[in-house]
């Protein structure tokens, strides 16, 4: 081995902001459980469905089931729920989040109460199930499967992801119209469920606040271009939590302002994640191994810092047009602009597939020396296309090392620490050689 991996992790400088997240998550579930006791409406949700502001404007408490599965994995308490799902007839190859979520609700149904020792007290019983087609198929199929265990109303919406080579100008009008109609259908459903009418002025104010929140997160994220990098991917994979699960909370706006200040101070003072940053890595597409996040620290031993990610990405910038007064129309236009941005830039770049385009941009902008992708056994959507991305990277950066790590988002049984470390050792040798040859 060209470089000895030193077993030290104490030099990692995690942000203070990231250190707050565990408390925030616990409080989030406590508040959801309390809201349920207070008879407020609780919804099972999926992240990035573009309905967060609408739910907030209707005072609906949002519980994100995929992320609860991730929490179970982090706490290594996913197995009992996965086993329950499999006992109920679901394949062990099904989306790991869905396995945990279905197993959780199947168990609750069987017990007639919250499963004992459920992480952070468990997800409260929902009053409605709200899925969407953004991201992957289980995100709109999973809740229907819960019909075996609960008679809870479901409303799913389409959130479109335009094809890579679509003529965006040609499809924009009907795509935005469809998104707006989907959101209006959801609002009608929510009005029926809650017995209250949507306050559109309030909705518009929430949308504005959300965009301000995103602006601060994006600004904070951009600071990671600095050398040394002021924040690691280990932090990113907790810092996304307020945005994805508490997007409309005023706390979240303040949180990302605080993150920006913290990172700015680090950059201004040349403080990096580690003292001697040798290499900068990109965590490519592929959700992280929630069950063993500590493996990411292993890279630090080589002087390697993950400076950017293409998972749980910060939303694209979006300027609220001054002439749009209908918040639903605004959300619909925003969804289209954001979900077509990479495709459009890929087209401008000569036909680069959007997933690859995201990587090329990060490699350039964040001075990346190597890319790590995570092949997750049970997550098709974040795994399919990784080889294509590697091939496109090689076209643009022929010697850029790309590593495939293999395990799963939740299933610990798929993970081999020894094998993973062996791969990392080899990969880091290649990164060292690459960086050396690049001067």
């Amino acid at each position, binding site marked *: 081995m060209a470089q000895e991996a030193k077993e030290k992790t104490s030099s990692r400088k995690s942000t203070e902001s990231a250190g707050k997240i565990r408390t925030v998550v616990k409080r989030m579930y406590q508040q959801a459980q309390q809201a349920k006791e207070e008879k407020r409406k609780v919804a099972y949700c999926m992240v990035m469905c573009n309905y967060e502001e609408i739910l907030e404007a209707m005072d609906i408490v949002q519980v994100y089931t995929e992320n609860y599965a991730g929490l179970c994995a982090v706490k290594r308490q996913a197995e009992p729920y996965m086993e329950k799902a499999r006992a*109920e007839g679901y394949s062990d190859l099904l989306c790991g989040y869905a396995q945990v979520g279905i197993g959780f609700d199947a168990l609750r149904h069987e017990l007639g109460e919250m499963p004992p020792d459920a992480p952070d007290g468990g997800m409260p019983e929902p009053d409605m199930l709200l899925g969407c087609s953004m991201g992957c198929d289980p995100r709109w*199929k999973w809740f229907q499967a819960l019909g075996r265990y609960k008679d809870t109303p479901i409303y799913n919406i389409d959130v479109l992801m335009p094809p890579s080579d679509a003529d965006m100008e040609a499809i924009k009008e009907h795509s935005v119209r469809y998104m707006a109609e989907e959101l209006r259908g959801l609002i009608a459903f929510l009005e029926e469920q809650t017995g209250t009418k949507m306050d559109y002025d309030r909705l518009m104010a929430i949308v504005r606040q959300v965009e301000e929140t995103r602006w601060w997160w994006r600004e904070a994220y951009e600071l990671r271009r600095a050398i040394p990098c002021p924040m690691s991917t280990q932090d990113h994979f907790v810092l996304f939590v307020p945005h994805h699960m508490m997007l409309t909370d005023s706390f979240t706006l303040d949180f990302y302002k605080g993150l920006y200040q913290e990172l700015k101070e680090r950059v201004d003072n040349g403080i990096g994640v580690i003292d001697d940053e040798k290499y900068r890595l990109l965590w490519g597409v592929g959700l992280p191994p929630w069950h063993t996040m500590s493996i990411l620290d292993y890279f630090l031993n080589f002087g390697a810092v993950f400076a950017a990610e293409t998972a749980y990405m910060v939303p694209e910038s979006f300027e609220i047009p001054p002439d749009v007064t209908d918040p639903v129309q605004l959300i619909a236009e925003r969804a289209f602009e954001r979900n077509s941005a990479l495709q459009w830039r890929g087209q401008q770049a000569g036909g680069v597939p959007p997933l690859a385009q995201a990587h090329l941009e990060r490699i350039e902008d964040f001075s990346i020396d190597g890319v790590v992708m995570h092949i997750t056994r049970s997550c098709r959507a974040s*795994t399919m296309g990784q080889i294509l991305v590697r091939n496109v990277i090689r076209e643009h950066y022929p010697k850029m090392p790309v590593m495939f790590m293999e395990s799963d988002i939740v299933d610990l049984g798929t993970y081999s620490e020894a094998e993973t470390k062996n791969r990392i050792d080899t990969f880091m040798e290649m990164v060292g050689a690459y960086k050396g040859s690049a001067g």
Partner: protein
Amino acid sequence: MTNVAEGALDRARWLYENRGLRAKELAAQGKQVVGYLCCYTPAEFMTALDLVPYRIQGGVGKPLKQADQHLETIMCPYVRSCFDLAMGGEYDFLSGVVIPHTCDAMHRIYDIWKYHMKPPYSHCITVPHMTHRASFEYFQKELEDFQHSLERFVGRSASEEDLVRAIGLHNRCRALLRELYELRKQEPPLISGTEITRVLVAGMTIPVQEFNDLLEDIIAEVRGRKPSSDGRHRLLVVGSEVDDVAMIRLVEDCGASVVMDDLCTGSRSFWEDVDHAKGAVSGLAARYLGGITCPCTYREGKVPERFSYLGDYVRDWSIQGALLYAIRYCDTYQLDAPEIKGYLESLGLPVLYLEDDYIMPPLGQWKTRIEAFLETIEAGKEE
């Protein structure tokens, strides 16, 4: 047409065993053949523009040669197989490829196919997952976009009359297939599941008018049969892609008759007609989004209403047992499978769940399980 076979079913078998030959012949004669994946692709648009629609298939029993270098192992094995054949030159005769975004695998393979195969023409149709009123309006726009895309490719336009004519041909095909399926209702069925599979696959590889002519001959031939009942159990197969006879033939070799299916290569692809009374494209949008029972489309409602069409099949085709066939890594089907199983069992049917990687079905293991399953049905009959 190159065809050494004599009877209509023999012709279908020849086409099945020599897939692509007829299309290659047409391509050599100057016809443009456009390949497509998935039964959500409205082939009518291609027919209307005098293109030959060709449904791309995988290769059961053909281990992957090149796809492993380009596709992740957890991707839909059927899609991987199709892509592997394409990489090996099997589909070089195609002038283009159309892939609808119906599931995650279809979505991802589009960019990968384009990147590696560089087809002269390609188009991805965004298919809504929902069936709200606005979903149909959106899908109609998407199909208009698809039509314009094809028109630009061939350099001519399809008129409403062209589309209506094409719809008429494809509706005729659907009607003939339903008529053929009717012949499976009687005991014993006049045509086996293995034969039906060959017919369906053959039809995916030739122009619709040729298939219609073939179907008429097949129906006449099958009607002339006078089989005697041998007491075989009558089975329903529910699943996704079955474009090879291996599994169905195994089941029938074990002593059962596959008399009905809910497969995307089977009844799902032709059960509903296109009604063009309110316009051709509107009718196509309504049929392709609303008329296909694939789990990739979200349909409101709970069990039993959601699967009641299967109950109709069970009743009308006198089903005695059901096989649920899952291709590994298919999230949409696997999320429905336990409920489908529960529903069919609630009808009193024994259900056998089979799962494989599409490419190399474990026929030896399955044989034992199928034989045991048929014994279960027999035992149930005797009780």
